[in-house]
Structure formats: structure tokens, C-alpha cells
């Protein structure tokens, strides 16, 4: 999943990075095919070059290795909102067929109080302002739902044209990368379609793990397995050093 997410950054110059899987994928991309990728963290760093994976977006190394450190209001107003950033990388608790995201609350039925999620963070404006959005999350019926309990962040809204109507700048989510495969919005309907599966995964496994009747591309590709170089770079990032030969 991390390797495929890293590959999806191909051709991007600047990436607004959330912590966790997105940060791992973005750093892996910078260590493999995209050495010039500019990593921007919402904690205020432009061009961070960490040598190990940060646990939090506030790890000191992100500031120490950055081209510039700015305030949090500045990162959101002058850098993100201004539409300067190519790719936003988001995780999610719940996703629907239009790649809308819920990270706020879970409906646990009439007799129980809502389940509390962390909240929006930077996501609504990252999804609104970056030129495109990549999403990374684990594939399950709990995460891929027919109907969101709460719309925290708009992906493609209720379908084609909705982003333009809402005045959202970028093209929105272009790929949802999971541990089973890759979904991409249909250019006509904006609905997520299964376009690739990882080696060893079946289409049935994916449709089974999706809470709505998932559309499947006419020809579903199989992602390339991680290369030795990618695996080595990922190991090095996790252990905190340069990749070993």
C-alpha cells in the first residue's frame, strides 16, 4: 500500500503531507523515484527532508531539514489555500463511492452515543485546494460505506460537476489506494471504480470489502510488486538511516 501510494506521486512536484501512511508514502517517493519532491507539512515546514519517518507532524527533524519554516496560519492561507500545491495526501475513517470522507463521528445506532473520531484537521481545505488528492486507507466494509455518517471533507460530492458548483479548486481525489488495490473516479460519473488489484488479491475480495456495490473496470490491472529498491528504502526510512546497498 505504501509503495503504491508512493508511486502515485509520480510527476508531482509538491505534496501536502498528513502524518502516518501519507507521510511514509511521500517520504518513500522522495527516496526512490521522486528525489525533488517537495514535502509540505501542516505544522509549517516547506521542503522537509527527514531521514527517518516522523511519528508526528511536529517532529523536530521536519523543521531542521526544511527549506523554510512558517507559521501554521501562513501554511494554510498562503500555501495551501492559494492552490500552490500539487498533491494532497489524505487518510480517512469512512469513504463513500464519491470519495467523500468522514473523520468526525460514527453513528453507532439509536441507543448508543455517536462514536467520536479525531475530526477534520487539515482535510477539508487540503481536498479543496490541492491540484489533486490521493487517499490511502485500509479496505473494509467499515471504511468503505454506502452512506457517510457525517461529511467532513468533500471528494466528488454527489457526482460530476459538484466540485465546480461548490467552488472547490483542484480536481479532487484521483486515486484511493488500499491494501487490496486502487480505486479511481470514473471520468464520467465521478464514482470510484476498481482499476487495479495488488498481486494475489481477487476482485471478489475487494467488492466483498466494500460497503456499496463497487463498480469494476472492464480490465482490472495488477499492481507491480514492490521492487528490492523500494523495499530497502522503506526499511531504511523506518529504521532511520540511509538505505543500505
Amino acid at each position, binding site marked *: 500500500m505504501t509503495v503504491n501510494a508512493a508511486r502515485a506521486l509520480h510527476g508531482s512536484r509538491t505534496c501536502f503531507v498528513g502524518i502516518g501512511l501519507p507521510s511514509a508514502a511521500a517520504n518513500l517517493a522522495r527516496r526512490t523515484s521522486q528525489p525533488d519532491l517537495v514535502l509540505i507539512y501542516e505544522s509549517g515546514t516547506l521542503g522537509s527532508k527527514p531521514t527517518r519517518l516522523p*511519528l508526528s507532524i*511536529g517532529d*523536530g527533524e521536519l523543521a531542521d531539514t526544511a527549506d523554510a519554516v512558517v507559521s*501554521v496560519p501562513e501554511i*494554510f*492561507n498562503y500555501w495551501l489555500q492559494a492552490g500552490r500545491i500539487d498533491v494532497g495526501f489524505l487518510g480517512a475513517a469512512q469513504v463513500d463511492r464519491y470519495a467523500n470522507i468522514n473523520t468526525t463521528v460514527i453513528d453507532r445506532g439509536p441507543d448508543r452515543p455517536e462514536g467520536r473520531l*479525531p*475530526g477534520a484537521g487539515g482535510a477539508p481545505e487540503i481536498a479543496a485546494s490541492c491540484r489533486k488528492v490521493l487517499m490511502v486507507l485500509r479496505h473494509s466494509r467499515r471504511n468503505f460505506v454506502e452512506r457517510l455518517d457525517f461529511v467532513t471533507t468533500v471528494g466528488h*460530492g454527489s457526482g460530476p460537476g459538484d466540485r465546480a458548483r461548490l467552488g472547490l479548486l483542484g480536481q479532487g481525489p484521483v486515486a484511493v489506494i488500499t491494501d487490496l488495490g486502487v480505486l479511481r473516479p470514473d471520468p464520467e460519473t465521478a464514482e470510484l471504480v476498481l482499476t487495479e488489484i495488488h498481486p494475489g488479491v481477487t476482485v471478489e475480495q475487494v467488492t466483498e470489502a466494500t460497503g456499496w456495490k463497487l463498480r469494476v473496470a472492464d480490465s482490472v490491472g495488477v499492481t507491480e510488486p514492490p521492487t528490492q529498491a523500494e523495499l530497502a528504502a522503506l526499511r531504511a526510512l523506518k529504521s532511520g538511516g540511509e538505505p543500505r546497498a
Partner: protein
Amino acid sequence: MAEIRSLRDAVAGLIHDGDTVAMEGFTHLIPFAAAHEIIRQGITDLTLVRMTPDVIYDQLIGMGAARRLVFSWGGNPGVGSLHRFRDAVENGWPRPLELDEHSHAGMANRYVAGASRLPFAVLRGYRGSDLPKRSSTISTVTCPFTGEELAAVAAVNPDVTVMHAQRADRAGNVQLWGLVGVQKEAALAADRVLVTVEEIVDELAPMPDAVVLPSWTVSAVAHVPNGAHPSYAAGYTVRDNEFYQAWDPISRDRETFLAWMREHVLEAS
């Protein structure tokens, strides 16, 4: 002009029951020691404001100090949930917690408006999100030049902002650097400002990427080395990532949490 005071006196003098308190620090320079002093002094009914509530507010909420939380992302960064926050919201333990919930961009701009003493700030945000339905501090304005509708967020003006910084001079000028987050805005938005510092020095040598708060914008400075732990102060301490991970099992269970707070906060000082 900032007075240099003990942490105990500064907290007692500046923070009162029912106050709106912002304890900022975007993962860096989080004023944990000051929060622990608030807990020890039993100050309560607070409206707590913070972009990322983090373990510091998990502790305050779990100890019943807060009646309301204004925030944009409530997790243990890189680890998982804030269990005390969730328990308060989901189960009202130890007391119910009202929420005013925003996005990061919205919260950052609320502080900007507060620091600018404007009643609101404008951003291109919240479009299509359900967040405005649950908050009375999100609205819209129309651009008088283009007709575009934009989000408006109400200013945040805390009674007190509490922060940690690397150092102050003896006149009470405060200097911080590294990830400076939204600290300057949070300080300038507040009526009163309490800063804990790693070090008090004769002279503040200029530092790259530093923010200086002149003494006349600060109410009190308290000398509290390592006062951000388990957060950190760049150049002085490092982030205790292990503690953040250890907090997950400590905070999952009410009794374990209370025992930990008793041992490490209430009976410490």
C-alpha cells in the same frame, strides 16, 4: 510588562474557573507543566481552545477541568485516539464536554482574527462539509467585489493563552523558534499570556525562524525547564515519542488514568 513568577503563582494569578484558555503549541512547545499546575490547583469549568487537543487536553479533560472544547483535530498524533476526550464526548465521563469543532484552516484563521482584533476572518473553506451545521462560529460572507461566497469564522480571543518557549530575558521578552505553530497569534489574541520557558537569559541572541513576543505583550514568565515534556523545545529537549505511545494504554482505562495522574501530576510538583 511581563513579571517573572513561579509557575504556581502565575497560574493562580492568571487562570480562573470558567476562563477560556488556549494552550497552544503545534506538537512542539506544548505547555504540559502549566497544564499540570492547572490540574493541581483544581481550576475548572474551563473552555479549552487548541487546534490539536493532544495528550495535554486529554489529561485536563479526563480530570474534569473542562466544560467545553474548541478544536480542529483531537487525536494522539501518530498513535491513535485520545481516550479521555472520547470518553467525555461519548459517555460524559467525568463530565459532559461541549464541542465547537473546526478545520485546521478555520481554527488558524480564528486566531488570526483574534490577534488582529477583528470579529471574524475569511477563508475559502468548509465547502460542502457538514461542519458548519454543528458550529455557531462558522458562517459565510460575500465578496463585495466578485460576489463569491466565502467562509467566515468568528475570532477566538481567549482570556488566557498559555505557551512554552525556549527562553526569555530578565525583562520578560520571550523568544521561541522551530515549529512556531499558531503561538504568536494565540498570544496576541488573548487578554493575558503566561509563558513557561526553558531558560532565562541576560540577552536574547537572534535566532533563525524565531518569534519574539515583547515583554509588554506577556503577563508572566515562569522558568520551567523541560516544561513541554512529553512535547519538546527545539534546541533544549527532544520529543518523547515513547511517552506518546505509552499514553495509549494508560489513558484507555479510567482507573489506570486516574492512578497515573495521581502519581505523576497531583502528587508531584
